[in-house]
């Protein structure tokens, strides 16, 4: 029974390995099509991309796109994945039956460095020489046949973006038996010591063959080690250091010597390389003056698009949720369940999902920037500035995106290789004033500066000041964390500037889809739960009679607001504002609607006709002075600049740091900062006589 067999015998697994920017993912997309699934490797936030494809005979194969790496001697968590998968050291991923080594033909030596390490492990392999067109443009003539003869494994020239060579690859993948690579030997002087190191690392296993030695080499040269293997690796390294000083250098040198011998006959430089389109483009895009102008222009255009184009579908989503709530109200009998659906689930989820169009647009633009190769240039231009506070140039786009929404910003930090710099970027991203803060800013500035006073420019200056305050906070905390967080891995930045390419729309859309799915599933579940909890807190216990305001003031949230009044009084807030702070815990802009419910009810004017700002301005304290005086408004604004009032961001931080520790820390430090800053502003302004 073939069907029963198919379920019991696991499918053969083919893994794709290669340097970053070799077109590995393009090839993976071409092979697996829509069958691909993206998840995380257990315990780390590295994407695990898997799919299936059919070989020439219609047999189903599993195909695994391993993260890009320059060497099996891993330096980052991303690079440890291909090493551990190929060595069969990962519990969640079976050791692949075959590998396809994707090699950038225009940059053969360095790419062969990894390919040789993989071939040395003794896994049946196919070498794909990708980007043959670029190699040709650079005046190189590469003989795949010569390479194949010398390596002993199939070598297939290809252009994955135009699918040239795909047929030959499928034929090679369909071979029942793949020949193993012809192995070179380690220099005799190293071999003996390596055998001893292997014995030490594998608790007494003697007489390792060359394949096993290659595995040991990749482990003991790794800077990224798991806790379990670290003591053994340290002992093995000490042994190597004792027996052959300078062993690491010799290993790399012998590897490059083998590569030199391989390529000597396979590459022919027919003519000197002309300046490539990339060289010409970089002359403009990285120009000392033009570079800045273009970067600034592009970012302005990007934000203008996000804020103008995204508002249209955002209104649709908002209207859609409102319409659905109305529809439920007409069809369901009045009661708790109806309220739960309309005021809890729909209102809560809607207030966050409303930002989905904006988030999708950002994902799309970030994907375009990554795919064209411009992202690396932005990092190159900005590295110096970001370096001042201990960040990497690659942190620039994620942090800039956070001014629209921190969620795509935090998800884009995966391009930062150094785990410490990545964590710092995630932690400070919510300090960028995102668009959910705008409604709060607009309302409070409106209360602070009524229509005539100071004019429009004063309001603009205030708004800019708030953005500047958040930015200063962001850099300050990045610098503080940089000083405090120590890490073992070095901070050397080696940033590759890959050739520019026309983005593959399909690849960009596929990534957009997978990121959107993460947002909806990860943030969505948390938002749903918190929305229901918040709804319950603002609805129960139910008053016997009364309107919305009575309901809110007598609810758990209302009582909580009164209870925290002593705590927030030094900031200049009354208990109603306390309720607003609690209600906007899940999403900042909820503050505005809560304020509206709380203060509008006492309004002597006709209901819903006068602007909320006017009503707020008329509120009085017990002593008759205005409630929303200058110092209270300032204190509230400063609070919202710093406070971490966004559950969705916390959910994404949890996913991206793979622990509850960091989102809790993020929430804690931002809330404390917000409180202290608001306290300072209120009390300080008081001393100054406002």
């Amino acid at each position, binding site marked *: 029974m073939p069907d029963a067999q198919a379920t019991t015998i696991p499918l053969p697994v083919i893994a794709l390995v290669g340097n970053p920017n070799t077109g590995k993912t393009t090839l993976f997309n071409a092979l697996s099509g829509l069958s691909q699934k993206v998840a995380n490797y257990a315990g780390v936030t590295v994407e695990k991309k898997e799919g299936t494809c059919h070989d020439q005979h219609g047999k189903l194969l599993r195909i695994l796109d391993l993260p890009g790496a320059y060497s099996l001697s891993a330096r980052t968590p991303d690079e440890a994945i291909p090493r551990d998968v190929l060595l069969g050291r990962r519990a969640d991923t079976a050791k692949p039956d075959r590998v396809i080594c994707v090699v950038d033909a225009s940059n053969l030596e360095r790419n062969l460095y990894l390919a040789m390490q993989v071939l040395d492990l003794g896994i049946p392999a196919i070498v794909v020489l990708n980007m043959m067109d670029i190699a040709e443009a650079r005046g190189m003539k590469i003989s795949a046949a010569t390479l194949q003869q010398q390596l002993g494994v199939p070598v297939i020239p290809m252009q994955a973006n135009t699918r040239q060579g795909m047929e030959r690859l499928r034929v090679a993948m369909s071979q029942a038996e793949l020949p193993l690579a012809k192995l070179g030997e380690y220099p005799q002087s190293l071999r003996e010591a390596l055998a001893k190191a292997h014995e030490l690392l594998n608790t007494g296993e003697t007489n390792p063959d060359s394949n096993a030695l290659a595995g040991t080499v990749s482990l003991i040269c790794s800077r990224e080690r798991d806790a379990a293997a670290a003591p053994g690796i340290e002992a093995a390294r000490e042994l190597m250091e004792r027996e052959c000083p300078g062993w690491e250098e010799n290993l790399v040198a012998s590897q490059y010597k083998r590569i030199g011998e391989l390529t000597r006959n396979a590459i022919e430089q027919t003519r000197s390389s002309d300046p490539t389109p990339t060289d010409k483009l970089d002359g403009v895009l990285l120009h000392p003056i033009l570079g800045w102008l273009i970067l600034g222009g592009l970012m302005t255009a990007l934000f203008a698009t996000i804020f103008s184009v995204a508002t249209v579908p955002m209104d649709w989503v908002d209207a859609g949720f409102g319409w659905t709530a109305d529809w439920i109200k007409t069809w369901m009998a009045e009661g708790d369940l109806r309220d739960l659906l309309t005021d809890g689930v729909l209102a809560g989820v809607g207030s966050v999902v409303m930002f989905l169009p904006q988030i999708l647009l950002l994902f799309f633009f970030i994907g375009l920037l990554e795919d064209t190769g411009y992202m690396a240039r932005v990092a190159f231009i900005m*590295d110096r500035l970001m370096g001042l506070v201990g960040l990497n140039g690659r942190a620039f786009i994620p942090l800039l995106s956070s001014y629209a929404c921190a969620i795509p910003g935090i998800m884009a930090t995966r391009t930062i290789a150094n785990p410490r710099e990545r964590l710092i970027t995630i932690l400070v991203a919510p300090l960028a004033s995102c668009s959910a803060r705008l409604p709060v800013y607009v309302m409070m500035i409106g209360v602070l500066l009524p229509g005539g006073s100071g004019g429009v420019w004063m309001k603009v200056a205030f708004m800019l000041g708030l953005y500047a305050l958040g930015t200063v906070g962001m850099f300050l905390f990045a610098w503080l964390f940089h000083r405090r967080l120590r890490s073992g891995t070095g901070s050397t*930045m080696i940033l590759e500037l890959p050739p520019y390419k026309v983005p593959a729309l399909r690849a960009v859309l596929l990534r957009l889809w997978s990121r959107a799915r993460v947002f909806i599933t990860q943030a969505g579940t948390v938002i749903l739960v918190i929305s229901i909890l918040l709804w319950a807190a603002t609805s129960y216990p139910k008053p016997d009679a009364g309107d919305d305001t009575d309901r809110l003031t007598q609810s758990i949230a209302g009582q909580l607001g009164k209870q925290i009044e002593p705590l927030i009084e030094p900031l200049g807030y009354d208990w109603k504002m306390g309720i607003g702070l609690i209600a906007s815990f899940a999403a900042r802009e909820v503050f505005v609607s809560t304020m509206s419910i709380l203060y509008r009810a006492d309004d002597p004017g006709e209901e819903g006709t006068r602007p909320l700002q006017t009503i707020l301005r008329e509120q009085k304290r017990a002593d008759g002075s205005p409630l929303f005086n200058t110092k209270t408004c300032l204190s509230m604004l400063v609070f919202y600049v710093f406070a971490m009032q966004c559950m969705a961001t916390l959910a994404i931080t949890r996913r991206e740091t793979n622990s509850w520790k960091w989102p809790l820390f993020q929430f804690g430090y931002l809330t404390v900062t917000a409180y202290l800053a608001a306290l300072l502003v209120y009390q300080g302004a008081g001393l100054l006589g406002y």
Partner: protein
Amino acid sequence: MCAGSSGMVDSIHLECDDSFRLREMGFMPGARLRLVRRAPLGDPIEVEIGGTHLALRHADAALIQVRIMPDA
């Protein structure tokens, strides 16, 4: 070294833990490289080695001793 000039790697400073990765990336004694440009703010620098363009910070590039070669 000024932008556009070529050189040959002489030696790499050993103490730094990351010098191993620089070697793996092709910064081997005898390898030819070219300083393509400096970033608009002076740091990092763009180096072409073995057909790849890599950006390195000054602090890291200082580990690599280069012998400047006259243009061919």
